């Protein structure tokens, strides 16, 4: 039985390699699911990042935060004047 199993799977493997199927990453449903989390939001993980791994969206939000702070500072200055 083992020999037949090995042979069958080897033949299947050869057929798959020949037909040019596109690979995908198999993720067992028994592991922690990928995708959004109840508390962790869209990303599904609590992430701590530093260095050049900052995603473009992070960079945009930091830029937006800086611009908002600058606008607030200008507004505050006008209030004083």
């Amino acid at each position, binding site marked *: 039985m083992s020999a037949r199993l090995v042979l069958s*799977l080897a033949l299947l493997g050869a057929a798959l390699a020949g037909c040019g*199927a596109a690979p995908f990453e198999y993720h067992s449903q028994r592991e922690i699911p990928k995708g959004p989390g109840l508390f962790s939001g869209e990303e599904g993980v609590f*992430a701590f990042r530093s260095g050049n791994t900052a995603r473009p969206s992070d960079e945009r939000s930091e830029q937006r935060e800086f611009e908002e702070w600058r606008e607030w500072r200008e507004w505050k200055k006008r209030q004083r004047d």
Partner: protein
Amino acid sequence: MHARKALLASTVGTALMALGAPAMAVDVTISGQVNRAFMAVDDGNKSDTFFVDNDNSSTRVRFVGSADVKPGLKAGILFEVEFQGNDSNLVTMNAKDTGSPTFGERHTAVFLEGGWGKVTLGQTDGAANGAVEVDLSGTSVAHYAGNTDIAGAFRFRDGSGALTGPTIGASSSQQDFESRYDLVRYDTPVFGGFKLVGSFGTKSTSTTTLTAPAGGGAVTTTTSTASSDVKELALWYSGKLGGLGQLAGALGYSRRGLAAGDDEIIGGSLSWLHASGFNVTLGRTDRDDPVAGRDKEFSYLKLGYKVGKHAVSVDFGRGEDQAAAADESDFFGVGYVYTPVAWADVYGLLKQHQLDRPGASFDDISVLMVGTRLKF
């Protein structure tokens, strides 16, 4: 064991420092899930209800961290522990409560990854762990080849109602190679959907026995440990077949050195999910068990349908010659999983286990489970 782990950790730490370059980017993520269920079991003589942690996909927390050592080379850690109260595979009619839960080690490993593949050191999955459990049905949280994760500690009762039979776990194990252990593992890069994985390590098996006094009272726990060398090799595949959907599978081999001889397992699984949602999963393992002195077999078939937030499936499995020579232990199940939002699964399972042994008669064991898994 702890000395060996410390040595491994210091070796890898020294190797990482020797690489010299400061980390350019650090990425640390924490994720986890809680999976609790209501379970009812009828063993032909007695029935009872249980509140369990579903061992198909236990309650756990995972930390993953990685950093670029230099362009094209990444180093990282994987740390994952489970925290199960009333494990669904350990409760019995005489032990409804398995005691206060403790953190159980699943993964404590470091890795180096580059274009040449990935090397992992520490406790993590052996190369073939899960090779008989590849499953694209979407119902694995309810039922899969590892049928003994739910109600696996229940014993079959004989014709007189006495608990003289083997447990479900001893009679229809999927024999999924050597699970997790302290190892060094190498994963090749993926070539056309194929990946070859090898691992070598030492496995310590702790056997925990729960004993409940016949007249009631506290459950006592005894644990014994034994270690042995393990080698595993596996070929994994996953690919999209265009209009034909997805196909995934694995073929594995493991060898564990025991005093009585080598404990060898060969087998694999294949799962096909058609674009229509129809899916079929096959699994098979053959084990040469030197302690029992015989070959043990396991076969598995699952048919399912998955559409939108719903997945349903029926399965059939058979363990042969496992608890005793000439034993045939069959199980039949139907499972359903509803995923209302991406972070929640609500599932139900109905399953029946049978044991045929020449010259003996055993009652069937029926299991009902309803539960939910929330990812946080």
